[in-house]
């Protein structure tokens, strides 16, 4: 009997980190668009967590050092990688896809990467609100015309950036945007389609769902 008690106690002890992270922080407690998936990641957070073993290799090969890891506030996702494009954005070099030993990141063509899609808030972006000429996001975009275009509109009296279908959500534009309120953000493709692009509604940010 004593043996069984000690055994159960030890099993409980060894599952301590798991249980703590699960019950203290069941959800990711941050805005979804500040923690976007990696390039080449399996679609869906659940599928990604099933494949990722939390080895940290992707972070170790990342040249711009943009890959960060969920801490205890990540709940089930703790020790798995994410990218916060407002701090440092992915340069689509593809090293992380090559080095990942698991199915979590698989080698994907740059144009087929799906980290989300950029969404421009039209009430904050300089050209959109008629505050002058900018185009920093257009200049830095690694995919060029396929992902973002500058369109001349008479109503704005300057060229405004418009996200195209080809945007893969790398987040370079988020990082480079000079507007302090970060008018560009990376949203899930299902939530921020090009059709809904630019709808300037400041709603409560969605949480990652688990």
């Amino acid at each position, binding site marked *: 009997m004593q043996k069984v008690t000690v055994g159960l106690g*030890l*099993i409980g002890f*060894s599952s301590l980190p798991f249980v703590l992270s699960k019950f203290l922080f069941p959800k990711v407690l941050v805005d979804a668009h500040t923690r976007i998936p990696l390039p080449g990641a399996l679609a869906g957070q659940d599928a990604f967590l*099933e494949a990722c*073993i939390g080895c940290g290799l992707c972070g*170790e090969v990342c040249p711009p050092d943009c890959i960060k890891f969920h801490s205890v506030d990540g709940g089930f996702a*703790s020790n798995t990688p994410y990218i916060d494009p407002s701090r440092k954005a992915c340069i689509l070099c593809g090293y992380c896809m090559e080095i990942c*030993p698991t*199915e979590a990141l698989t080698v994907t063509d740059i144009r087929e990467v799906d980290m989300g899609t950029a969404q421009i808030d039209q009430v904050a972006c300089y050209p959109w609100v008629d505050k002058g000429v900018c185009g920093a996001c257009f200049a830095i975009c690694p995919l060029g015309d396929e992902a973002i275009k500058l369109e001349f509109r008479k109503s704005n009296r300057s060229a405004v950036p418009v996200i195209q279908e080809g945007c893969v959500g790398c987040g370079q534009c988020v990082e480079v945007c000079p507007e302090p309120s970060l008018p560009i953000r990376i949203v899930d493709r299902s939530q921020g389609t090009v059709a809904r692009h630019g709808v300037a509604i400041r709603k409560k940010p969605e949480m990652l769902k688990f």
Partner: protein
Amino acid sequence: MKDIVRHLNKVRWGVLTIIFAMLILLPFLHLYQSYEAAHAYDLLAPSEKSIYDSMEWLTKPFVKDPEVELNELKGTTWSGTLFGLKMSDPLAVVGQIAAGKNIYWPFLLTALIPILLTVVFGRFFCGWICPATFIYELNDNLAAWMRKAGLPVSKHKLDKRLKYFVLAAGIIISAATGMIAFATMYPPAIIGREIYYSIALTGFGTGMVFFLLTLFFDLMVTRRGFCRYVCPGGALYSLLGWFRLVRIKRDVTQCNDCAKCNVVCQFGLDPLRDDFSQECNNCTACIAVCPTDALSFTLNIKDVPFQGPGHLGHKHKRDEA
């Protein structure tokens, strides 16, 4: 041959130290690579400049393009790449299969070399590679000093089969939640990850707290308790190495029953009575300590049964007379 075997324990300490040092060095190399990739040496802070300079000095003789070439050697013992050869811990593969309920062959193949080595050498990973062993053995030395100083230290014994239940529980938790539970509580994975986090990212994470608790458990409750009774990796390697080929064997004609091997064995095995079992991690401490060279490696898929008291000892002589 005997002379070499006697020094294997020192070689093992060398290997453990090198692996632990690499775990500390690789995050610094990663920092160096990211500074190099930024092409902005002048903008680095003084501390970053010193990291850059020292790492440049260290790697200059070997690599021309650090951004690319240093990627050849990356990772931890949990999963890493060694000059293009990807290797993963078999426990990671088991956890991933349990969590994802699918087999991804490229990942399974990364564990092939460790699995084959384990089938031949048993729990060699626990004694020769595991970065947590490095700290646990130092912790055990601390326990020895504390014992000498008269302080209370670990002396309880538990059931060795417990770790198989931990392994099973981990597999069930992984399957139920779809998250690899082993990654949060397997010490080598924690060590590798936490060193990387603390050097290259923000600082120690929660895994470190758990690891310190296991050190305390070893010190206060039972000697090398986590490795012997809890570690799911140890359980997996014990199962894989059940019929391992390389075993330590006692030469009964040379043994003098001094029992030094039993004292030095941190895993609490019984070399004096030929009881190595699948738990032995081939640490060779008993071979190094044996005064009469009675212990050595043999190729055998089963331990020999108890051969009786050593022929050089008093008991054997009494029995003969």
